[in-house]
């Protein structure tokens, strides 16, 4: 018995991609490849093996024999071709997968060679290709008609009868009570066998309770209804001593993916209607000065944030690819330790002084060092971090006008009106650096400090653009890592985003499961099909 915080949006993996949906679809559908939960390396899954042409453009996948959909029909190359050509590349179906599998406006050619062989021909070399092939494959025999009738966007919504949702995964959905629970049962046709030759999965049933309130979730875990609980920093001191009596184990899986960072507006543009610059010119000069940003980085007390916000459970973040990114994480970037003296020195070196002795700094021309600082209301963790940062910066002599904005207001300021000065925000991360291109390439719409540049505004932004263009075409993993290491180093030197802390992934899991192998990337139940319930437990 597990839990989730919100209802799924859909059972249609192409249409909806956020976690409440993938939690469900992840049990039902599978891709040609998968990511190893320990090493983050790509491994074969529905495809038994693959070959690649010497130029890296033609990939041939050989599907496993004997894989069947959970309604008993065999999986064939037609399903793979259908998933790409008729779903992902269908212009009438909105899907973020299309953005991943489109390079410079060109799509992949996907052809069936025989029943168990599929060939992908790429327009250019594309390093994240294999990882991208974890894209779930959907059944042609179930969905073809819906696509032909133009109904696909509304197919497999949350009002669909569960038995109509057909996948190859270890479990199938048998019941969904909105707002209450999701029930999965064992897929009797599942292809995977254990090392001893048993048919997997072992578990007969998984129940997810939909519990919106984390405190209630905790109560339910303590009471024994739930078998696993994602521990918040504040719960840790409560749960850890209870491990023995409660017959559960607390697993610490290291830093999580999400990041929290503060950044300054470096956009030199003007509002097209009023002609007013987005940022006042003297402030823009500060924000575009890397030394100013470094001073800010030195003034942020990451340890204090970890102590206060996360109850001492957290890690300082230095690089855009955190340790959770595994292979591509570069630990050798510039670290900014909390050092107010150094921060003051840097500020003095750039001409900031408290000339009128009012406790606040002024720049060379006498402008008060003052700026507005936003974050989104409703995210308590972020609000707490913002409060600490504000305190730290004021201690340095900056006048920080903090305001919590409604999420939508903040987004429209960041993406369309550009009227902001400093913002604290978070983004989800991943293990594939290329998927951050909308943030890091100067033309990206999420290049938030100065989005959608026509040509890179600075030398270092130009270099990052080059790295991303080269990196996506570099098939040698080692050389690729070198490139992305350099990008992480540049970011840590230039600090367009000033990182704060990473949270932790801590789970409390009841000691009833056998074969449980928690892993930093795959988390607790990545090998759910191999997990069984130990004797003596229900």
């Amino acid at each position, binding site marked *: 018995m597990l839990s989730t915080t*919100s209802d799924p*949006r*859909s059972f*249609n993996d192409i*249409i*909806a*991609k956020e976690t409440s949906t993938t939690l469900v679809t992840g049990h039902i559908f599978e891709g040609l490849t998968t990511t190893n939960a320990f090493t983050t390396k790509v491994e074969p899954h529905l495809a038994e093996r693959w070959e690649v042409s010497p130029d890296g453009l033609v990939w041939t996948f050989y599907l496993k024999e004997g894989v069947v959909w959970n309604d008993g029909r065999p999986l064939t190359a037609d399903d793979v071709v259908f998933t790409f050509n008729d779903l992902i590349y269908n212009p009438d179906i*909105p*899907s*973020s997968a*299309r*953005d*991943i599998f*489109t390079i410079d406006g060109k799509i992949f050619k996907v052809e069936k060679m025989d029943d168990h062989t599929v060939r992908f021909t790429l327009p250019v070399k594309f390093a994240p290709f294999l990882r991208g092939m974890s894209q779930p494959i959907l059944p042609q025999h179930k969905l073809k008609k819906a696509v032909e009738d133009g109904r696909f*966007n*509304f197919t497999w*919504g*949350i*009002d669909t009868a569960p038995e109509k949702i057909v996948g190859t995964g270890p479990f199938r959905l048998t019941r969904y*009570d*909105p*707002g*209450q*629970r999701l*029930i999965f049962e064992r897929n009797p046709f599942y292809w995977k066998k254990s090392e001893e030759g048993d048919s997997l999965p072992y578990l007969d049933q998984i*129940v997810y*309770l*939909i*519990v*919106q*309130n984390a*405190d*209630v979730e905790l*109560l*339910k875990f*303590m*009471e024994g*209804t739930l078998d696993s609980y994602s521990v918040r920093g504040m719960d840790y001191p409560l749960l850890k001593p209870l491990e023995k009596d409660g017959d559960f184990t607390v697993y610490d899986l290291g830093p999580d993916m999400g990041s929290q960072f503060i950044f300054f507006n470096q956009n030199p543009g003007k509002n097209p209607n009023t002609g007013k610059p987005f940022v006042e010119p003297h402030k823009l000069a500060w924000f575009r000065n890397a030394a100013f940003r470094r001073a800010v980085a030195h003034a942020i007390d990451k340890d204090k944030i970890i102590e206060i916000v996360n109850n001492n459970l957290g890690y300082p973040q230095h690089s855009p690819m955190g340790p959770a990114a595994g292979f591509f994480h570069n630990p050798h970037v510039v670290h900014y330790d909390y050092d107010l003296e150094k921060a003051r020195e840097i500020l003095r070196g750039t001409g900031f002084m408290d000339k009128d002795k009012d406790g606040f700094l002024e720049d060379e021309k006498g402008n008060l060092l003052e700026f507005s600082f936003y974050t989104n209301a*409703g995210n308590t963790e972020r609000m707490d971090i913002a409060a600490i940062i504000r305190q730290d910066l004021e201690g340095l002599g900056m006048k920080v006008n903090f305001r919590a904005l*409604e*999420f*939508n*207001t903040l*987004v*429209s300021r*960041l*993406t369309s009106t550009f009227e902001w000065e400093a913002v604290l*925000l978070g*983004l*989800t991360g991943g293990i594939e650096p290329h*998927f*951050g*291109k*909308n*943030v890091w390439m100067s033309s990206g*719409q*999420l290049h938030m400090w100065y989005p959608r540049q026509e040509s890179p505004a600075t030398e270092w932004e130009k270099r990052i653009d080059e790295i991303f263009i080269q990196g996506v075409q570099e098939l040698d993993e080692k050389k690729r890592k070198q490139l992305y290491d350099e990008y992480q180093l540049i970011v840590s030197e230039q600090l367009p985003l000033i990182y704060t802390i990473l949270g932790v992934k801590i789970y409390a899991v009841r000691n009833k499961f056998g074969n449980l192998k928690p892993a930093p990337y795959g988390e607790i139940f990545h090998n759910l099909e191999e997990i069984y319930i130990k004797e003596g437990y229900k």
Partner: protein
Amino acid sequence: MLKYILKRFLVAVPMLLGIALLTFVLIRMTPGNYLDTVRLDPQFSQETIAYYEKLYQFDKPLLVQYIQWIKNLLRLELGYSFHYNVPVYRIIGSRLWNTFLLSLAGFLLTWVVAIPLGIWAALHRNQFIDRCIQFFSYVCFSLPSFFLAMLFLFWASQSGALPLGGMYSPGFESLKPWGQLTDILRHLVIPAMALSIGSIAWLQRIMRGNMLEVLGQQYILTARAKGLPENRVIYLHALRNAINPLITLLGYEFSSLLSGAALIEIICSWPGLGSLMLTAVRSKDIYLVMASMLMGGVMFIVGNLLADIGLAKADPRIRYE
């Protein structure tokens, strides 16, 4: 009377359209739209976002969007939810019923307990029992309902006497009808109690006040002087007059049946409308919000009408022509 009811329903139509327009304008006046979350997702390209914008008609002027919605409404279509990608009525249906059930339970509990309690307190005015009731009323009234719900849940988790939230147990389908009913009732206890305790405290005080006022009237003195038995004086003459203002309240309470339980629903994992709407408003899933506002409007109008009719039945001085 019938003519009056008919007239009220006719007036209701423009009123509902007004509610819809106001909701629509208000929600669109706040900055941003449903796509803002998508905009901050690194995996979405500019083109895909533009595609969505067109699909959801965010590029059209406000008035065009509103007229389109009204047109659909006349065909009894409430539109699609952006978030769930299915027609709004498919999501709302079951949740509407769940919220209604919970609120009705809270509502009944409130009235069944508060009215007698108020009368009892009034009859023992300033005696020990009255003081006790008033003291606990103050306490209960000042406790927020979600906190009470949390307390109850904590108690339930310690004692194991009642289920911890949700609406029915796993395996509900295999129970006999009687078992199903008790299962739901068991799940109802905590949220309904949390929902009604504050209202009981409040309603009880109103009932007590009304009763005391009526008991001080001269016609009660007359009735007593006539030698009528005390029971008859209180339950026939006094009560009928004291309860009049409460009938109006009943109407208002009825109208809040669908909207008053959001917090409790979230804490008790009750699969109702409130929690759904909260996420819908926050993510600006506009048609889902509109549908719920419309539903709230209908309840309000019906509630008021019921109150007016009830009032006319109870008080012969009130007549509608």
